[in-house]
């Protein structure tokens, strides 16, 4: 009996770790959607880019992890601002569907470029954390998992504070709500668009670095870009809080499905479960748990 509970707790814990990464990537995704109404299909590539840059900085240039980490964020920032400037800004005013197609093209191009530059085999981050798992109320947690969790949660809290209290955060929320209102308040919405892309790329690359540290990186990492869909649709496409909770729920769901159903079906359920869940959510609550339901006064 207690073994069963321990197993469940273990699954929940790993789910939480994975979920925290999902939450980060989903946050990035929602950010772009909210302020620019673009569904960014290249989110997974932004994540992969961050992971590869960080890896290169550590292995090739022998920069200590912590500096490499911040340098990676700087690179992601630059990449995102460039992308926004060169590719997406000229598309402002075009139909949304064309812009979404552009992001799909962008994802293909970025992925190929990454393949050309870094090849296709899996690469592993050098060990930064000790392999000795930490005992924690009778559960085991790898040090890297623990740090990932702490790290992702910190990011989430920081962003929550950013949106609540900083002038730029409030300006982003106004822009997300209504671009014309934003303009009338003197907010430069083009700068806000660039900022959304930049922040989105940064949080994604943080997610990429965390995943890289857990599993190593290869081309399959871009599939994370697809995994965010169940998360954001569960949470509601335009809700930052929803994205975060959606991320955690999907992470946990995936792990539970993996733990309990994989042995029954002989594997594979873990990867499918989020998407099955996605379909169910779409049928029951098409705007997600926290999607924008327009406030109506009575």
């Amino acid at each position, binding site marked *: 009996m207690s073994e069963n509970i321990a197993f469940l707790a273990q699954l929940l814990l790993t789910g939480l770790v994975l979920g925290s990464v999902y939450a980060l990537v989903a946050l990035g995704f929602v950010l772009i959607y909210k302020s620019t109404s673009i569904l960014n299909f290249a989110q997974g590539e932004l994540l992969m880019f961050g992971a590869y840059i960080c890896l290169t900085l550590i292995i090739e240039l022998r920069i200590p992890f912590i500096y490499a980490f911040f340098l990676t964020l700087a690179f992601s920032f630059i990449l995102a601002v460039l992308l926004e400037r060169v590719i997406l800004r000229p598309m402002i005013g075009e139909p949304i569907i064309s812009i979404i197609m552009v992001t799909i093209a962008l994802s293909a191009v970025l992925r190929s470029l990454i393949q050309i530059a870094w090849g296709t085999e899996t690469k592993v981050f050098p060990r930064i954390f000790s392999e000795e798992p930490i005992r924690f109320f009778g559960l085991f947690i790898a040090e890297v998992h623990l740090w990932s969790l702490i790290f992702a949660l910190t990011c989430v809290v920081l962003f929550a504070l950013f949106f609540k209290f900083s002038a730029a955060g409030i300006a982003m929320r*106004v822009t997300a*709500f209504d671009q*014309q*209102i934003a*303009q*009338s*308040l*003197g907010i430069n919405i083009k700068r806000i668009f660039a900022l959304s892309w930049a922040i989105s790329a940064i949080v994604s690359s943080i997610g990429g670095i965390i995943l890289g540290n857990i599993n190593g990186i290869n081309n399959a990492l871009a599939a994370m870009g697809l995994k965010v869909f169940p998360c954001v649709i569960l949470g509601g496409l335009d809700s930052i809080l929803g994205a975060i909770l959606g991320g955690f729920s999907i992470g946990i769901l995936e792990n539970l499905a993996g733990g309990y159903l994989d042995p029954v079906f002989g594997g594979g359920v873990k990867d499918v479960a989020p998407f099955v869940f996605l379909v169910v959510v779409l049928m029951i609550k098409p705007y997600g748990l926290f999607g*924008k339901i327009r*406030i109506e006064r009575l």
Partner: protein
Amino acid sequence: MASVLQVNNIEVVYKDVILVLKGMSLEVEEGKIVTILGNNGAGKTTTLKAISGILKSEDGEVTDGSIEFYGERIDEKYPEEIVRKGIFQVMEGRRVVEDMTVEENILAGAHTQRNRKKRKEDMEIVYHYFPRLIERRKVMAGYISGGEQQMLVLGRALMARPKLLLLDEPSMGLSPLLVAEIFEIIQKINREQNVSILLVEQNARLALSVAYHGYVMENGRIVLDDTVEKLMQNEDVKEFYLGLTEVGKKKSYRDVKHYKRRKRWLT
């Protein structure tokens, strides 16, 4: 009197083909309230949007003429620059950010004001003029009443420390009592904060009662302008905007049928 805003003979075209303003001119003097009257589709809102620059995001363009703010041309400028110069448009329809609290909405108005201390002071000023907002500060702006929302957008505008406020239909959809309250505050702000105001109103009687100078707009141009005292005496304005006929005469449907006064100005 120094003029704050001068609109010289502007022409506005939407989507490269639709000519909305055809040689529109007006002037706002320092510290005064000026009003534009006109029926639906005359181009009043377009005029305000041309001044604030918001027109550009609606695929509209000032193709001729010029707009000057304290003698400086602003018709080529973007809305964010124009707000920084001191022109603030309060758009029609109480455009609050519904999913933010009242206080966050007010803070958002201070986007161009980065000094935290001044922001705090300005916030006090807003609450001084609109004390009703104090108790609602933590409530989502989407849930407050229409009158409070109108107060909120006016308060939000004050946060940017504007020199010229462009008000688009502040009375729309509000009860007469609230309208009176809000217009009293608008006049107070005009006097005490030395903010010039360009007011667009459907409610002509109300607009003429607070303004100093009025413009009558039709089909994208000004057809008549004068001080409000003179406008109120004008037979056409009386007939078409104030709904009065000659004193002493009862307005009967029979008369209306047989004799319709034609406007004396050329449109």
